[in-house]
């Protein structure tokens, strides 16, 4: 049998794909260099309130004087643009990237809502009508890379990344940002949510993420008439903040006004600063900041 030299033996040449991929990595690294802390807000489970928490956390940190960016990494179900009131904003596109719109809170925001026409546009790509499973994930990962590397974030203290549901999406973020300053894992007290989030806990532990905090959302509801606290869920499932789990950094009570206010593009921490949920989010922001500063 004749001996044909291998890829590594023949030396440089060919279509330069590794060089182009390396250049993409360099652009990503260059952009991240100006961002002091990248913080992921993830869960694994959908519907636990990650995006509303991200929007309010961003507003709370910005109102404390930090330079904050918010990236909506949920490409298929984006909502941060609306929650932070920048839907419809136009972006200046220049040689060095896209200028993200700045919300009234001072938060710089990027979300797929800014690029798509209409509120009900599903995420679709140009391409062959069949065999989308071959290439769709590649396009989504490439787009997420661009949303980080091709946006002129400027110098930021914190970039909050709202990670889409699904444990794999946490992995996708870690592929692009291998060493985030911290990761918040959001759950509700329900057994179903905790069981799903337990998978994320294991993933981030194995990925050796430096700082991981648990946030329990929608823990209780306060009666507006008598002030009595009622638990929304009977706590069930694994104890995520137990001995083998992660530290709990916050617990946020349910407040229907939070969803309403945030859906209207006004962060609840600003519209209802004295509400227990707003105070809990502000407490979480302070706790997060303390953890980030404790290098």
């Amino acid at each position, binding site marked *: 049998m004749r001996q044909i030299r291998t890829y590594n033996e023949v030396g440089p040449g060919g279509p330069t794909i590794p060089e182009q991929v390396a250049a993409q990595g360099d652009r990503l690294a260059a952009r991240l260099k100006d961002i002091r802390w990248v913080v992921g807000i993830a869960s694994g489970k959908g519907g636990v309130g990650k995006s509303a928490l991200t929007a309010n956390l961003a507003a709370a940190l910005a109102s404390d004087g930090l330079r904050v960016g918010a990236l909506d990494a949920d490409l298929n179900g984006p909502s941060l643009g609306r929650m932070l009131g920048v839907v419809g904003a136009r972006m*200046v596109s220049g040689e060095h990237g896209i200028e993200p719109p700045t919300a009234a809170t001072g938060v710089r925001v990027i979300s797929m809502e800014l690029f798509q026409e209409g509120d009900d546009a599903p995420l*679709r790509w140009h*391409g062959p009508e069949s065999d989308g499973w071959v290439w769709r994930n590649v396009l989504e990962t490439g787009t997420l890379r661009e949303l980080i590397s091709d946006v002129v974030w400027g110098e930021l203290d914190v970039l909050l990344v709202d990670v889409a549901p699904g444990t794999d999406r946490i992995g996708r973020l870690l592929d692009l940002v291998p060493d985030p300053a911290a990761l918040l894992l959001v759950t509700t007290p329900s057994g179903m949510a905790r069981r799903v989030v337990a998978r994320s806990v294991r993933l981030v532990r194995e990925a050796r993420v430096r700082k991981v905090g648990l946030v329990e959302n929608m823990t209780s509801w306060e009666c507006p008439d008598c002030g009595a606290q009622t638990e929304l869920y009977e706590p069930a499932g694994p104890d995520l903040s137990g001995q083998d789990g992660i530290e709990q950094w916050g617990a946020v009570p349910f407040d229907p006004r939070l969803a309403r206010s945030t859906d209207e593009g006004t962060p609840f921490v600003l519209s209802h600063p004295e509400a227990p949920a707003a105070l809990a989010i502000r407490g979480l922001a302070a706790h997060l900041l303390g953890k980030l500063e404790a290098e």
Partner: protein
Amino acid sequence: MKFLCVPCDEVMTFAERQIPGDGTLAAVFRCPSCEREMAMLTNPYETQLVSGLGIKIGGRAVPEQPMEILRTSLDGARPDAFVEADAPPAAATLAGDVPIAGRLTWSVDSLERLERVPSFVRGMVKRIYADWAREQGIGEMTPEVMSRARTELGLEGM
């Protein structure tokens, strides 16, 4: 991915790229020793897969543009999402004008052709064409120059 000319034991170098417009791609590689050529032909989803990686078979003549994947691949894009920092010139070069070194002027026909590009990608396409033309030492953009650039740069759908 590399192509080795087995008789010569040489890595073949990229020679030419063609985009017929049906989602397929042809990339020609040539052996530097015997000059034998071979063409790599990709089907539409292979082409899309490569495009989704943000890479160009044969290498890039101009650097990757900001949001290139998103702007060239998103279906249902918002036409007025972007304001281009580098907007097209208001007027084309009049006949007899001498192009200034390093500057590029756009003929009326080329601007008309540019207007047909969806606004979501127009600014980016303009920048790509302009960078390529400057690199080639071309002082005036015409539809013919745009066609050449499109083929050489592999700008599917632009």
